[in-house]
């Protein structure tokens, strides 16, 4: 019996010797060709994803549109033809003309300039709300997913209770309590925006935590904290990027809705939502007054939506049915 095992081992060793020779030859061949193995550069996941994203024309156009809008928003004082606050009572409610490309509003302010300044509010709302919602979502989701048990139950119930509330009614309540203003819009949307993120991250963490490398990390003495932040979250980073991008347009829409209802950004500060609200009274006389801010919202939301879809396809093909 032992002899057959010895024979088996002997065979393994023979095979090994052959393989070693083969390896030597292969490296020698590479050297002869002048190919240094240093040249065999590696590509990371994000380089791959960027390559895939570049192939997606719609997503690239959207990305371009967002970048242009961002530049316009940042350099608004340089780009806007007029001050957004400068009134001109004799030239109010003008249709588009060479002087005022988008016409003027009921106080004679230049609508194009107000739209340009309004882009600041919309972009800021989209980004700041996600900056609030994503960390909360990550912390809550990973605690629920990693620890399970009571922690999971409590957090999941909180998510369900808050989630069963119509989002907009909740936001209206928060705005009502906190008062109007841009800071409070951030808080209202951020406080409730994490629900979806937490649920997604919880699911991703549950899936990841049974992976062998997590077990291996535990066996090498890593603490729970380092397992979550080093092993679990970097592995669901692509999910986080995708859900954040997909949520930005809805934040922009909610800001516009709140401002439309007079609960968000207060006049005279220009916001696309509040502009449409003000234009409501003049819909018959000067339809362009409300049409142009509407188009602006549409372009930005559409751009973020298609970019989000493109990112999802590039980064995380598993999320295709989100």
């Amino acid at each position, binding site marked *: 019996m032992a002899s*057959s095992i*010895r024979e088996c081992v002997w065979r393994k060793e023979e095979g090994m010797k052959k393989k070693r020779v083969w390896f030597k030859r292969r490296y020698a061949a590479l050297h002869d060709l002048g190919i240094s193995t240093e040249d065999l550069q*590696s590509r*990371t996941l994000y380089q791959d994803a960027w390559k895939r994203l570049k192939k997606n024309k719609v997503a690239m156009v959207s990305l371009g549109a967002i970048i242009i809008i961002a530049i316009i928003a940042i350099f608004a004082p340089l780009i806007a033809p007029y001050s957004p606050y400068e009134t001109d009572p004799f030239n109010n409610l003008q249709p588009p003309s060479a002087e005022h490309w988008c016409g003027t509003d009921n106080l004679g302010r230049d609508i194009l300039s107000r739209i340009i300044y309004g882009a600041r509010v919309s972009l800021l709302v989209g980004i700041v709300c996600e900056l609030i919602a994503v960390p909360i979502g990550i912390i809550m989701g990973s605690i629920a997913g990693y620890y399970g048990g009571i922690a999971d139950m409590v957090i999941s119930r909180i998510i369900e209770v808050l989630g069963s509330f119509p989002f907009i009614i909740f936001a209206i309540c928060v705005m009502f309590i906190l008062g109007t203003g841009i800071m409070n819009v951030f808080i209202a949307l951020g406080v409730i925006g994490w629900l979806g993120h937490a649920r997604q991250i919880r699911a991703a963490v549950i899936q990841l935590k049974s*992976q062998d*490398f997590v077990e291996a990390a535990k066996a090498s003495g890593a*603490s729970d904290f380092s397992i979550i932040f080093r092993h679990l979250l970097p592995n669901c980073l692509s999910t986080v990027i995708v859900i954040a991008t997909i949520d930005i347009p809805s934040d922009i829409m909610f800001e516009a809705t709140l401002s439309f209802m007079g609960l968000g950004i207060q006049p005279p500060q220009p916001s696309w939502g509040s502009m449409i609200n003000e234009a409501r009274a003049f819909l018959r006389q000067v339809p362009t007054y409300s049409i142009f801010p509407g188009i602006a919202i549409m372009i930005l939301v559409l751009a973020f939506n298609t970019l989000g879809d493109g990112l999802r396809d590039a980064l995380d093909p598993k999320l295709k049915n989100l």
Partner: protein
Amino acid sequence: MADNLLEIKGLTTKFNLEDGVLTAVDHVSFEVERKTTIGVVGESGCGKSVTAFSVLRLIRPPGKITEGEIWFDGENLLKKTNREMRQIRGKKISIIFQEPMTSLNPVFTVGNQIEEVLKLHMGISGEEAKKRTIELLRQVKIPLPEQRYKEYPHQMSGGMRQRVMIAMALACSPQLLICDEPTTALDVTVQAQILRLINDLKEKNDTTVMIITHDLAVISEVADKIIVMYAGRIVEECNGQEIFTDPLHPYTEALLKSIPSDAHRGEKLYTIEGMVPNLLKEQKGCLFAPRCEYAKPECFETEPELVRVNERRKVRCHLRGGDPVQGQEGME
């Protein structure tokens, strides 16, 4: 008295499942001498991995260590706090897993992952950690370690990844290295390389090694002590390689018979009839009796004790006489 690094006394690990309590490890006791290699053999589900995970206290609910003591280097691991256990894992006891393809984090380079262990337990980082990591990769015979240091796990083959896992396990020069089926997922030529590597590194670093496997060829030649497990119990224990020439337990004998060999080429391969008993049910008699070709009526009535046959060997079988092993009586 022998110098034992690890002493397991009456270890019992149970899993509270929905349909009952499953005793995965049932009063297992053995000692591992310093700087030796111990092989734990048995088929799938016999409790060998659970034993290893119990030593590291990595049993997750619904599993629980209900009884026993695990003495490692003079300390009872079951009395340690979680924080103290974290200090021990990876530093004093390391484990290599069965599945090298998924045991590495896909989003970090291998260098980064080895450095993490160094940073955690040795407190070294930066250039020094990098130097040490490349040294470790060289030690496990990875060609071009400077290049591999920067690579991601998906760029490596299974054998290569298992070498990285070994480098990671040995990063802090542990006293005990547990290898949980280290070669199962690899092809035969690579298996031999990995085993030789583990053996070489063991000699070099004076590590104690515990190899868990279902492949008898793996532990032949390397193991100084062999434990055969069946259904959560030790059925045969042997200091040395005698089980290959003179198996005492019918189960060991049957295992050896099921190895394909040249002598029986062309014949139908021997298989052990029947199934592993369902541990959720109450068992009576010897657990191997239903599959045993020598079973006597007595075997179905009472469960045999683990008895000492001579100074090197112990067996749990009614067919072999011997003195009951001390500390084992009344435990069953």
